[in-house]
């Protein structure tokens, strides 16, 4: 009897703690989003109230859409994120295959060399990266960002993908070789489809940091026509700092795409983390 009661108590305590922390985690997002739909007066008079017919207003969103070019920013962020992920996955998988499949001199050294970048942040090299981008004329282009994020993402991608590629059965590849497939075809036709789940994990891991990065857009591509959504909203909010409707709406608009991505990919992301891919 007493054991059962204690278990009940423990369950309540566990739910209590988790609910409390969930509220702490979601409260700021909730406050920002509900207030973005209110009139200026209502924002200040009752910040915690839901918008009602009296206080409902879209004035902030109107300002944002009129003053800031959020569709362009969104498009830039999309191009940079998708482009970087494409190159991280393609180049990462190719290198991972070479390291996992073939025995050649320098294999281990090459693996260690590529793994260096897992621990060392690419930001340390910013001064020289900017200098290089200026010299090659890539500054203020989306290519600069794509190149940097590709380089940043490759080390972990190679590391995770080569672990998975080692598990692909040798018999399958050898059967392909006997059938006369070239090494390239073995990679693209046989191996790549089999490591798709690992590729998805790598993509999800890289997606959010690339989308949210502020440092490199600020330094390498600050021009209006190549601003990413993160930089664009930062600059916009800085300019409209006294227009609370506009600031709250801009924040809500910036939250929206990430939340959408999260809803679509959260299972993949959580499975990726919990399956120990980052050990």
């Amino acid at each position, binding site marked *: 009897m007493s054991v059962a009661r204690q278990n009940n108590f423990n*369950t309540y305590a*566990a*739910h209590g*703690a*988790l609910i409390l*922390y*969930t509220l702490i*985690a*979601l409260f*700021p*997002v909730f*406050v*920002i989003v509900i207030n973005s739909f209110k009139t200026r007066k209502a924002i*200040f008079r009752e*910040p*915690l109230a839901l918008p009602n017919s009296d206080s409902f207003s879209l004035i902030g969103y109107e300002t944002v859409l009129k003053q800031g070019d959020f569709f362009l920013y969104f498009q830039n962020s999309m191009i940079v994120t998708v482009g970087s992920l494409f*190159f991280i996955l393609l180049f990462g998988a*190719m*290198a991972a*295959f*070479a390291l996992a499949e073939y025995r050649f001199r320098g294999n281990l050294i*090459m693996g260690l*060399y*590529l793994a260096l*970048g897992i*621990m*060392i*942040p690419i930001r*340390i*090299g910013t*001064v*020289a*990266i900017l*200098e290089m981008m200026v010299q090659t004329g890539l500054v203020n282009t989306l290519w600069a960002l794509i*190149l940097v994020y*590709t*380089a940043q993402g490759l*080390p972990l991608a*190679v590391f995770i993908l080569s672990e998975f590629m080692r598990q692909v059965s040798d018999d399958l590849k050898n059967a392909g070789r006997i059938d006369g497939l*070239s090494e*390239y075809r073995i*990679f693209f036709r046989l191996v790549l489809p089999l490591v798709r789940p690992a590729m998805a994990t790598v993509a999800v891991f890289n997606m959010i940091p690339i989308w*949210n990065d*502020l*440092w490199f857009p600020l*330094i390498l591509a600050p021009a209006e026509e190549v601003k990413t959504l*993160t930089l664009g*909203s*930062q600059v916009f*909010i800085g300019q409209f700092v006294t227009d609370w409707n506009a*600031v*709250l709406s801009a*924040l809500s608009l*910036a939250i929206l795409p990430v939340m959408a991505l999260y809803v679509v990919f*959260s299972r993949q*992301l*959580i499975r990726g*983390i*919990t399956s120990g891919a*980052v050990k």
Partner: protein
Amino acid sequence: MSDPHSKPKIRWHIIVFLAPAVLVYTAVMIYPLFNTLRLSLFSEVEQTRVFVGLQNFRTLFGDAVWSAQFWNALANNFWFFLIHMLVQNPIGIALAAILSHPKLRFASFYRSAIFIPTILSFVIVGFAWKLILSPIWGIAPGMLDAVGLKSLYAPWLGKEAYALTTLSLVSVWQFVGIPMMLIYAALLSIPDEILEAAEVEGITGFSAFWKIKLPLILPSIGIISILTFVANFNAFDLIYAAQGALAGPDFSTDILGTFMYRTFFGFQLQLGDPHMGSTIASVMFAIILIGVCLYLFGIQSRMRRYQF
């Protein structure tokens, strides 16, 4: 085949597979990294680049104005890191321990919800908290008033004494999901037999966590610590989004990332100086390298790994 000693022909496909990744990685990451270290040994005199040896480092550590800024940023950075270690990681471990309870309902809901702040950008997080803590809007004072603690309220982000701690806690709020997830994964990988054996011995609940689970997840806690260290010592975005490049009030929230940015790009009347920027980057590189080496050789190699 007949002569194993003959020179093997070059297997071009290996080169083709490796080349793109190695080229991009070398050109955009490794080469600039070393180039930055090299640039820290140069200075600009009359618009030409001249080699000055360790002069920049001497300025950084020896010149009164520079060294005051540097030590301020470094000390702040250590405080930033300490708060993450003392608040973020214990909360993450506690949440993971609760979540990993096998019969807990709605576990995946809690997990996904608590992870949400981690996916938001620093810009959103920085501004959202700035607004919430702002004395103008009054959400924070209003909520404290509701529980009768209004006297505790202060405009935390505007006070030198509190601003850095407040921002560290905002960062903790944002990233608590990462230790939670990694520890959660580690706890799930502990086999049931071990826990059942402990239960037979009468070790359950809290003591099972302290005596059985915690020692088994120590390697994961080590990994989280080094990840936190590296992330904190090249942090920049949150401070920049919330307080601007000047890391106010009066540089009280300045950390190495913002210090390097200001030095590199210049601000107000001071011109940007890529060479001093590289010098600070080199020091950051050294700090991160020391941290990673301490972890790899000092902690990880001594830690016993359990194979299940």
